[in-house]
């Protein structure tokens, strides 16, 4: 009988397996903890970020109150003005006629205005559109997905997107026809 066939005293005790299990458990616990901390950090970081103000505009599809589907991608080649509003928002009421006037002045010059109704009820939203005679496409922000992708902080907020889908200007608060004209004119040349 050789030494190889004899069981060594250490081999009888399954210590390495136990310590390996323990080690794996510890690694898993630390990994879970780390993942949680990363998730919390990402959320906190996102909260500190302001509205999107440069680069490619976040893509979205708006289903209007009339049931028409308009994707931002399909409007490539045109200047797009995305306005977030709500029927309960008083500053929105002030800018509504201005936006409508701007739309009427520029709609034949390759400018599209899209109204995104933020956290609103359809009845009041429709009444609001009727009250201000809004004719440009408007639709609800279903699931607040569009407003989240633009990281808006409130309403009204307006985003101007150039013909290549790049964000040119972020307007926080109410805007006017003149302000928008100043921003849009250079984009049409």
């Amino acid at each position, binding site marked *: 009988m050789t030494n190889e066939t004899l069981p060594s005293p250490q081999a009888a005790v399954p210590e390495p397996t136990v310590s390996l299990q323990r080690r794996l458990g510890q690694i898993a616990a630390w990994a879970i903890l780390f993942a*949680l901390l990363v998730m919390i950090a990402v959320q906190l970081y996102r909260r500190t970020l302001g509205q999107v103000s440069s680069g490619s505009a976040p893509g979205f599809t708006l289903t209007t109150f009339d049931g028409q589907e308009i994707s931002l991608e399909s409007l490539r080649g045109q200047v797009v003005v995305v306005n977030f509003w709500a029927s*309960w928002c008083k500053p929105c009421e002030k800018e509504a006629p201005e936006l409508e006037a701007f739309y009427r002045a520029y709609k034949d010059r390759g400018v599209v205005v899209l109204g995104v109704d933020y*956290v609103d*009820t359809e*009845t009041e939203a429709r009444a609001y559109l009727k009250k201000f005679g809004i004719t440009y496409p408007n639709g*609800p922000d*279903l*699931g*607040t997905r569009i407003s989240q992708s633009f990281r808006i902080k409130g309403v009204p907020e307006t985003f101007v997107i150039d013909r290549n889908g790049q964000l040119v200007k972020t307007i926080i608060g109410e805007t006017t026809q003149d302000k928008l004209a100043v921003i849009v004119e250079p984009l049409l040349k």
Partner: protein
Amino acid sequence: MTEKQLSADRETLFAPQLNCGAAGGSCTAARTFVIATTNYNLDLLRLAVAFLLLTVYCLLVTIPALAQDDGPTDDEVNAVAKQLYCPVCENTPLDVCPTQACAQWRATIREKLEAGWTEQQIKDYFVEQYGERVLAQPSTRGLNILVWILPPLVFLVGALFLARYLRAVSARRPAPAKAATSEPAEDDLAAQLEKELAKRR
């Protein structure tokens, strides 16, 4: 005007039509008949007016009650509303939120309840419209499951660690050592006391 005057007036009014002068005695009977008939008509009129007033009163009392029975009560609306949070007013449940946006949401809840929607259907509608963040209690779908699992899990793991730590501490502590050290100390003290007493004797 008294009842007597009224009767006299009626008599005067109907007398020419009855030809009382020619008829003599029959005129008195006719008069009596006219008075009785008009009195009876007056009673009927009174009764009709009283009935009409009673009907109006009953309608006034019951219509608001009926209207309340038809629509959902504020409590029913708030029972759904308190399970929702408006994203505009963070950390304020919908049932107590004073903003116009929240008032509109509550009106929508009322509309849906009137239309016969269930509580769950209304909540699903709000989630579809405004996202999952409107729910006071997060759903158990996707990453939201962590909200439900993690707190009890962390508590359990913490309790496990604490139990293991306490067991380890109690295992490390030499229990009888305290008794062994305290006895000699007492003996020393007694011996010193004896010594001092012997000195003073």
